[in-house]
């Protein structure tokens, strides 16, 4: 896989990050190396091996559909960068 500055720009957009020209150069070099090392995974024969995303058997946990937490709106809003009338404030999203 060839990593170019364009690749970095695409990835930056995907993770919602702005990169300066200087950062882009550095990240291109870094990712070239890192992705190169990741390609050594191809040396391992994984034919017929099931991918494992979790080591222990996981099943969904259900509970009765009743409200257990109180009204902590005020508490939660304390960490909001900007709030108004009990809500989070964001820039206008529709014209």
């Amino acid at each position, binding site marked *: 896989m060839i990593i170019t500055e364009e690749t970095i720009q695409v990835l930056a957009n995907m993770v*919602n*990050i702005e990169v300066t020209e200087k950062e882009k150069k550095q990240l291109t070099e870094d990712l070239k190396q890192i992705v190169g090392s990741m390609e050594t*995974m191809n040396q391992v024969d994984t034919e017929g091996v099931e*991918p494992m995303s979790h080591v*222990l058997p*996981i099943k969904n946990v259900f509970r009765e559909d009743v409200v257990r937490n109180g009204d902590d709106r005020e508490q939660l809003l304390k960490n*909001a*960068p900007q709030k108004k009338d009990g809500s989070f404030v964001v820039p206008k999203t529709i014209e």
Partner: protein
Amino acid sequence: MDITALSVIEVNKLISDRKLSAVDLVKAQLEMIKQREASYHCYITILEEDALEQAKEVQKRIDSGELKDTLLAGIPMAVKDNICTKGVKTTCASKMLSNFTPTYDATVIEKLKNAGAILLGKTNMDEFAMGSTSETSYYGATKNPWNVDHVSGGSSGGSAAVVAAQEAYFALGTDTGGSIRQPSAYCGVTGLKPTYGTVSRYGLITYASSLDQIGPIGRSIGDCAAVMEAISGHDPKDSTSIDRKNIRYLQALKEDIKGMRIGIPKAYLERGLQKEVKDSILNTIKILTEKGAIVEEFDLGIMDQAVPAYYVIASAEASSNLSRFDGVKYGYRTPNFESLQDLYKKSRSEGFGTEVKRRLMIGAFALSSGNYEEYYKKALKIRSLIYQIFQKAFEKYDLILSPVSSRTAPKFGESLSDPLKMYSSDIYTVSVNLAGLPAVSLPCGRDKNGLPIGVQLIGKHFGEEDLIRAAHRLEQAIGDLRYTTHGKEA
């Protein structure tokens, strides 16, 4: 007597015999922090008044007899700054969360408070736990208490250093790819990474959900066992928490290791280990044999690809987990923005440091269409193979012994400049997380410059009792390499 040098078990006796009050203990601990914190920078947040208030409350509970069954009553502790503490700032060592104060306690904190432990402060770490030196912290690096020109390790560098420097009796760390074990080795303390699912992750600000596990760092394996008694157990708030009868951590301290089968992956001793590290490991093998264990070398199989597989999986999970930081509900928000998209982008660009950005991009790369099969899915298959290899080894052995790191703590700036070099240093630790196994790192020697060396014991799933048993025997035989950092000052 310097009471801040005692172990949890030793100081607990003084408290339960009423020879020492929780308040006096906290005062002595705060005094020690005042003397040493400027040199080491273990903490991001230190609680003073609040810790004394907690101590008064705990002393009342001790006096009423409520806490007689716990070893942690009145014990001052430090907690890694990625674990939520109600009303106490929790930053993940990031500018992104520099103003974040959780409205609830993580389950582990709730449990420790119930057991009577006292929160002294929040420890420094690599930003969002991404790093091996604690140098990626937004608040500056933690220095190694054995030699301040060297790193404390990472990502739980502050948690390991705080215990070595006698600035807390024990600490909580988190381990995603070695982040409890490696700093413990570098700082000459003992760290336990529990089996995945043993300790609730509720309230842990996650890095890679399928790998992260909270665990104790202490001055002895006994102290780690005492903490495990308090923090382990099923939690309905964590869907990956295992419903299982509790393991007898403290009981294991009393058992010997006669006939215990211990395997050593042959390749682990053959690759480029620092000479003193190899010598110390060979010495631990000798001790374990003398104590009645059957130790032999074996071929573990593929392990070289564990590191790239780990970085693919951890970064992929991180790029998804960290998408929650958008400058809207909590965390840093850029002062200058035009649209909602602009707000997200600028807040994240200004809020995250370089290493975090790098890993988010690696994750996005591995998950993007066209790369998914070749990188992400391939890594998951290698994870599967590593899991099977360990399962097979544990049919034959009770424990696996290995180095924690090929070397002692590097100097500042040595690792950070070359990410690939930094990543590859995790070779001995990451496979344990990929397989969800428990492992302990404990001191086993020092190099010619006096820097601590650690040895790693890896157990089978829920094999913590075996780990504690063997670690305790080793600790007794190796003698006091522990918490003597400041022998020269005493």
